[in-house]
C-alpha cells in the first residue's frame, strides 16, 4: 500500500449544483445502502421479536413487543444435541483461538518480512514465491495429510493444534504484507543502523518495529477477522471442547427441536459476528486500509 494515493480526497468530476444527475447519484447510493443494510436490519429486528410475531411473516416490521429473551437463550441456552449451553462457550473458544494465533502470526510475519527485505540470501526468492502461491491454496488440499500429521504429534483436536494451524496458514499473507511494507522503507535507515554496529535482532526491535506500527495495526485487523471467521480449521481440527463460534452457529441454526426458533438463530448469528462487527465500526479507517492491504497483496 506504499505510495498509494490517499483515499480521502475525491478526484472525480467537479459536481454541478443540484442537477438531476446529483439527485440520481444520491438515489443510487441510498438504494444501494438499503440493499446492504437490509439483512442487518432484518437480523436485528427478528432477534427482538417473539415467535408469534415472526409467524405473521413480515420480516421488515418493527417488533411490537420488544423481547430480549432470544438473546438470553442464544447466549446461554441454545441447544446443539443434549448440550444446551448456548453460544457463550464457543464465543470464549473463539477468543482463546484468535488471541494467540493473531499475536504469533503477526510477530512471525513481521520478523519474516524484515529478514526477507533486508537480509538477502540465496533461496529467499524461492521461499517468497512459494509463500505467495501458498497464500491462495484451498485448504482442502491440505486437510487430510494435516489430520494425519497433527494426530501423529498429538495435536489433533486440541487448542494448541488449531492455533498452530492458524499461525501456519496465516504466515504466507503476513510475510508478504510485511515484506512489502519493509520494502518501501528507505534502505538508508537500515544501512545507518548497520554502520552503528547493530545486529539482526536489535535492528528489528529498535529500528524496524517502531516504524511498523501502522502495518501492525493493519495486520492485526486482517488476522483477527480472518481467524475469527474461520470455519473449516475449527470444524476439522478444533475438537469437541474448542469449537469456535462459526462451527457452533452452524450447528445451532441447523439443529433444533420442533419449530425453528428464528429469533434465537438471528440473535446467535449476531453474537457470532459481534467481534468483527465491533472491530469494523470502531477501527473505521484502519479497517479499510487493512483489508485493502490484505487484499491487494494477498
Amino acid at each position, binding site marked *: 500500500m506504499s505510495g498509494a494515493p490517499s*483515499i480521502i480526497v475525491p478526484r472525480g468530476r467537479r459536481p454541478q449544483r443540484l442537477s438531476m444527475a446529483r439527485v440520481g447519484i444520491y438515489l443510487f447510493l441510498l438504494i444501494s445502502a438499503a440493499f446492504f443494510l437490509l439483512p442487518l436490519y*432484518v437480523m436485528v429486528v427478528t432477534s427482538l421479536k417473539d415467535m408469534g410475531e415472526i409467524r405473521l411473516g413480515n420480516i421488515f416490521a418493527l417488533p411490537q413487543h420488544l423481547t430480549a429473551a432470544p438473546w438470553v437463550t442464544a447466549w446461554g441456552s441454545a441447544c446443539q444435541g443434549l448440550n444446551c449451553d448456548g453460544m457463550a462457550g464457543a464465543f470464549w473458544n473463539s477468543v482463546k483461538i484468535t488471541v494467540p494465533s493473531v499475536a504469533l502470526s503477526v510477530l512471525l510475519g513481521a520478523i519474516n518480512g524484515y529478514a526477507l527485505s533486508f537480509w538477502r540470501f540465496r533461496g529467499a526468492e524461492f521461499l517468497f514465491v512459494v509463500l505467495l502461491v501458498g497464500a491462495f*491454496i484451498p485448504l482442502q488440499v491440505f486437510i487430510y495429510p494435516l489430520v494425519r500429521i497433527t494426530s501423529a504429534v498429538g495435536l489433533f483436536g486440541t487448542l494448541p493444534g488449531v492455533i498452530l494451524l492458524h499461525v501456519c496458514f496465516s504466515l504466507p499473507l503476513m510475510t508478504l504484507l510485511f515484506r512489502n511494507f519493509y520494502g518501501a522503507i528507505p534502505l538508508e535507515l537500515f544501512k545507518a543502523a548497520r554502520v552503528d554496529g547493530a545486529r539482526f535482532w536489535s535492528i528489528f526491535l529498535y529500528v524496524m518495529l517502531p516504524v511498523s506500527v501502522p502495518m501492525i495495526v493493519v495486520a492485526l485487523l486482517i488476522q483477527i477477522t480472518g481467524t475469527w*471467521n474461520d470455519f473449516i480449521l475449527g470444524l476439522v481440527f478444533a475438537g469437541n471442547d474448542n469449537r469456535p463460534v462459526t462451527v457452533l452457529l452452524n450447528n445451532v441454526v441447523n439443529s433444533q427441536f420442533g419449530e425453528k426458533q428464528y429469533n434465537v438463530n438471528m440473535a446467535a448469528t449476531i453474537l457470532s459476528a459481534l467481534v*468483527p462487527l465491533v472491530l469494523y465500526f470502531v477501527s473505521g479507517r484502519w479497517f479499510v486500509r487493512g483489508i485493502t492491504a490484505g*487484499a*491487494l497483496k494477498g
Partner: protein
Amino acid sequence: MPLLIRLRRILPALIALSPTAVFVFGIFLGCLIWTCVISFTSSKLLPNTDFVGFAQYARLLTTERWIVSVQHMAVYGVAYVVGCLVIGLLLAIFIDQKVRFENTFRAIFLFPYALSFIVTGAVWQWLFNPSMGLNTALAGLGVAGLDLGLLASPDTAVYGLVIASIWQGAGLVMVILLAGLRGVDPEIWKATRVDGVSPAKTYLWIVVPELAPGILTSVVILGIAAVKVYDLVVAMTQGGPGLGSEVPAKFVMSLLFERANVGLATAGATLMLLAVLCLLAPLLYLSYFRRGAR
C-alpha cells in the same frame, strides 16, 4: 566476501526464517506432494500405495456430482466476480462524486466484508426462506410475481449463493477501485470537458482502463474465493436442492470423510489446486516477475 563471514552475517536472518521455512518446505510442500501422490492410488478410508494411474481422475470426470459442482463453481464464480465488479465499480464511481456522508456510505457498503461466510449464509438463508422470508414480506407489501425463494429450486439456488456473496464482497471491490479512482489524474476531467466528451464516456473509455491493476487484483481475489467456496454453501443450502448447489470444495470434503474415498477426494483437491494456480498466474506475473524483486 568470504563465505564464512557472509554466513555469519546472515545467520540470524536464517534462524529467524527457519520456522517459516520448515512450514513451507515441510508441511506445505509436503502435504501438497502427498495429496498429489495419493490421488494416483486406490486409497479408500485409509491411504495406501496401490497406484492406479489416472483412474481416480477418470472416475472424477465421469461423476455427475463433480461435473455439476464444477459447473456451479463456474457459474457462481463468473456471476460473483462480474456482480462484485459492476456493483463495486458503480459504488466507487458514485461515491467519488464529492457526495456528502461519504464515510457513512463507505462504511455501509463495506461492513458485510467483515462477516464470515457462515454468518452471511445464515442470514440469507433466512431471507430466502420461501414461506417466511422476503417472499412473504413482499407479498404483504403487495408486490406479486417476484419469486425470491431462490434456494427452493435447483435451477436458482446458485444465484441465491451469488446474491449473498455479492452482498458480502462488493464493498471490497469498491474500496480497491476507489483507491484507484483517486489516483486518476484530475487533468483528465478538464481535458475531456474541453473536448466535449460526456462523463459516462470518459469513465468507460479513459478512467476504467486506468483502473486495470485494481480490477485485476479484484478478479484474482474473488476468483480464488469462488474456487474455495465451501462455508457459504454449508450454511445456506448444504449443496441442495438435489445437487443444485454442490461445489468442488464440498465434494472433496464429503468424499474425504463421510464417503471414505480418499483417492477420489485428493484427485478433486489436486484439480482445485490447478484451478487456483491458473488464476494466480497473471497476478504472479504482474506483481512479481515483471516488476522484479527488490
